[in-house]
């Protein structure tokens, strides 16, 4: 058993989490790569015997939050009158990415970050409320209210077809 092999075994699930957080596959895989790189560097901080997947989810989530904040800052700095729909994105790539997106992807992207990460951990990754709250570093009550609001928004965005 090596650390790398353990990581490889959970990589399909990490990709799933990354894609559910990200705008598209390419962003998801970039996030996944950054997470693996960070984990390999920080491997001494992982305590054997604890859940490797939870540790990885936490690293990924923190990287994603950092990146989202950086993107918001960039958007504020560079936004012009044409910003509107394309805040922080390269236009061409958006069109391309949207073609491959289903209504589930689009609805997830429309959620505020804090709701999206809660939904991703519980509904996509299937974690318990306790596990998800620990990864996000929030009390259970906060997690459940985000789940309620996030689901309400998803149902609305996806319409009755859900």
């Amino acid at each position, binding site marked *: 058993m090596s*650390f*790398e092999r353990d990581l490889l075994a959970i990589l*399909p699930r990490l990709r*799933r989490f990354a894609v559910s957080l990200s705008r598209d596959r390419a962003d998801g895989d970039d996030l996944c790569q950054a997470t*693996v790189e960070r984990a*390999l560097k920080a491997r001494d901080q992982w305590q054997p015997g604890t859940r490797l997947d939870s540790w990885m989810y936490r690293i990924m989530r923190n990287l994603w939050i950092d990146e989202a904040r950086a993107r918001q800052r960039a958007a504020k700095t560079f936004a012009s009158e044409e910003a509107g729909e394309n805040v922080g994105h390269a236009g061409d790539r958006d069109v391309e990415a949207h073609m491959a997106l289903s209504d589930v992807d689009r609805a997830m992207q429309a959620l505020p970050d804090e709701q999206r990460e809660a939904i991703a951990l519980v*509904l996509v990754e299937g974690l*318990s409320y306790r596990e998800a709250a620990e990864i996000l570093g929030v009390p259970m009550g906060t997690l459940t209210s985000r789940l309620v609001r996030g689901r309400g928004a998803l149902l609305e965005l996806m319409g009755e077809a859900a």
Partner: protein
Amino acid sequence: MSQIDEAMLIALVDGELDEVNRRRVERVVADDPALAERLEMHRSLRARLTGHYALVAEEPVPDRLRALLEESETVVPIARPAPRWRNWAMGGAIAASLVLGLGIGRMSGGDAGPIGMRNGVMVAQGPLAKALDTQLASAQQGAAIRIGLSFQRKGGGWCRSFDGAVAGVACRHGEGWQVQQALPGMWPGTEYRQASSADARVMATVDALIEGAPADAAGEKAAQAGGWR
């Protein structure tokens, strides 16, 4: 109606209620059609998200991610490189064929993934329905969906637990299988199986449903031969 709020409803869907509260919510829902409809919407939303992203976990991991770990492993003293990647490549081929299968299911059925909705009820379809119908727990090496336990439920009827892209429990209903519970599965991470939260929750559902002991290999075979009646 007032005594059950939205949070209780979704906690039921997420398998987060203890036995006492679960029964209480189910009782109230049974007498309240509006609440029952809301519950079904939440069940279906969960199944839809689970099924949608399950496809991502079935894809082969991109080479650049694999290479990252491969390179890192070779600089660690106890590295044992070659053989594992061959297995992994094979897993990728199986995953690819499964994705293809699900894709076809989507085109013809209009409903993505191994679980569909029929009259507001989650039902197994495609490869999952086939595995539930035919696959025996005693003979499923290399199968994309693994059958866990087969058992009789309280009040009669067969149920089977399963794990794959989606994990859960399904019970025989007429000619099909009603999915009682659907959680993101562990496959294809099966070579490294930690006790997952899905496992524990599937077992809790089995415990809540089961009458007596699960079927042994002979009992499972006989039930399969009898069309799970």
